[in-house]
């Protein structure tokens, strides 16, 4: 059973377009993190959200944590080729299994390609 479902799995867009990727779960998490992974490298943390309804902005990236802390979204405005990569969401502190914040459950990722 995949606890965190990410959609879409693949996304190919042109430079300048906007996009949203989603991370959904039937479980409640105490925190939700987004990572970006470039080919041949390890994931790099973009943001952590911990409060239901929280919105965080990182330049052209906007992250939202659902009110019920079961889902999250990442919106990119005016995508650039440098945004290309695998976007992973990860949940910590899964409440219905007594999970701890330091063990994360990862989704399978959204592979984003931004074409010039």
């Amino acid at each position, binding site marked *: 059973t995949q606890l965190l479902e990410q959609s879409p799995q693949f996304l190919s867009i042109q430079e300048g377009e906007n996009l949203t990727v989603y991370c959904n779960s039937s479980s409640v998490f105490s*925190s939700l993190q987004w990572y970006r992974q470039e080919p041949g490298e390890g*994931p790099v943390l973009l943001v952590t959200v911990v409060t239901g309804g929280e919105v965080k902005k990182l330049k052209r990236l906007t992250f939202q944590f659902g009110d019920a802390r079961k889902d999250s979204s990442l919106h990119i405005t005016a995508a650039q080729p440098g945004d290309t990569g695998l976007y992973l969401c990860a949940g910590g502190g899964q409440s219905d299994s007594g999970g701890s914040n330091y*063990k994360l459950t990862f989704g*399978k990722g959204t592979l984003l390609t931004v074409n010039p």
Partner: protein
Amino acid sequence: NAGVTQTPKFRILKIGQSMTLQCTQDMNHNYMYWYRQDPGMGLKLIYYSVGAGITDKGEVPNGYNVSRSTTEDFPLRLELAAPSQTSVYFCASSYPVGGAQYFGPGTRLLVL
């Protein structure tokens, strides 16, 4: 700070061989993790450690062993390598609060 370093970057093993993947972090993090990443499958937790001398199994521990004798080092041992262990292996470390993890560059392993 070098962050999290992993060696080797790439290795080819024959079925039945053994090897150790090295991982070192210089951030004084108590928590360390080993993951494997297969195409389209995300990251699966193999083993983790909450401090020197303490390790525990993750989601996919079979065929692997770990040790944690110091805060800095967390080696992953593969005994009797099998083709199913062909994967990219990532080591990570974190502070306990917030759980944000810092990843190494990965080791690509091919078992033939």
